[in-house]
């Protein structure tokens, strides 16, 4: 199941581990990505904490953790090939994996249909 935040992050949860990235809409808005910083493995994040950084030719953006938990894996290849975020935001362009502390936090996020409607309301 994939959930979406109002900050345009997606989180795909499987067996209590969530993979986090930014949505295609966010990647499109950012434009050419030139710099990425991913969190260190072992870092504990509260929901809403600054988790990662993505910078395009236009601006710097923070990636907030959509849930609380511990970072169990980071996409270490991303900082060397930041353009992956734009090329495949909801695939190879993932940022980090987090062990969810409280799965009920997912209830605050949107499903795909709700996120699509949310994005539509922004244009």
């Amino acid at each position, binding site marked *: 199941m994939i959930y979406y935040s109002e900050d345009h992050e997606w989180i795909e949860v499987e067996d209590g581990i969530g993979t986090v990235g930014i949505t295609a809409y966010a990647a499109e808005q950012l434009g050419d990505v030139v710099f990425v910083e991913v969190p260190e493995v072992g870092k504990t994040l509260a929901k809403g904490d600054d988790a990662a950084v993505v*910078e395009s030719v236009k601006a710097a953006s923070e990636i907030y953790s959509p849930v609380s938990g511990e970072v169990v894996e980071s996409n270490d290849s991303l900082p060397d090939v930041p353009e992956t975020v734009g090329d495949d935001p909801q695939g190879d362009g993932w940022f980090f994996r987090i062990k969810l502390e409280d799965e009920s936090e997912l209830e605050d996020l949107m499903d795909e249909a709700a996120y699509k409607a949310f994005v539509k309301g922004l244009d």
Partner: protein
Amino acid sequence: MNDPGETLKKTALFDLHVELGAKMVPFAGYDMPVQYPAGVLKEHNHTRDAAGLFDVSHMGQARLTGDNPAAALETLVPAELQALEPGQQRYTQFTNEQGGILDDLMVTNMGDHLFIVVNAACKDADFAHMKSKLAGKAELEIIDDRALLAIQGPKAGEVMARLSPEMAKMTFMTAAEVRIDGVACLATRSGYSGEDGFEISIPDDQAERLARLMLDQPEVEPIGLGARDSLRLEAGLCLYGSDIDETTTPVEGGLVWSIGKRRRTEGGYPGADVVARQLAEGAPRKRVGIRPEGRAPARAHTEIHSGGRKIGEITSGGFGPTVGGPVAMGYVETEFAKAGTPVTLIVRGKEAPAQVEKMPFVQQRYYRG
């Protein structure tokens, strides 16, 4: 951000931008293209490799007439304007009594008048400033029925020679009245990208047709404000309001080259005493190029540290596509201004090593004949 109550002005090319799929953003009161579907990176690289067309019609254009408009305008700017030959262009700044910069501008001697181009965000203030300070000495005529297009890049000369052969012989920082497909235009061989190119003042009702004609040339692609910014940053050129403003003098801003030799001793412009003192004794701070060592871009307002204390601040910065890494400029205390000086940037609370570097970051390629 866009104030919903604000009515944005449109340039003569607005419909063309929309047709080309541009992403439009509010800029200095105008609805302007920040990028086209190609995106900032490709637009930047295309300008460096071939030629890019920019709509800069939001900028202010004016004529200054009178018995001696150059002498009159010299009372407001530090450039040597009276020595400008007809057809020559100069870069200068309006200064205030503290030697701060009110705006930067281009001045061209058109023989019987001066042609002036100022920044969009400052144009109303600039025109009011000139009208009030030059009253009785010169007459300001605001040009509000002409678009301004820039064509920039190593192929710009070839493209314009094809469309208007008389433009081929123009050299950097000169102007000429030319005809492009029968339309009388005023062209200057100058720009804001570090590349060869032209800025062309065109009657509004002919602007779209000539823009399409230029875009029909195989070397030319439309370029938005995003790439305009990364191009000028790599070229080491100032953005007014970021890199220079009312609190920075031309000496601090590294613009001493634009102050006329005669003007350095004679003065006669606002803040001339401050500028003369800084020229003699040195300025407390200087605008320099900054090259972060890592990949992280350092944006405007990033603090610059050395020896554990703040010695300055980044004024513009980002990713330089041609450089292939982050580039920035900012102010540092003068003792740290030498190229090669190591400094520390505070990026998102973390220390990042960087170095003071000579600008431009990318070799300027102007056509000097």
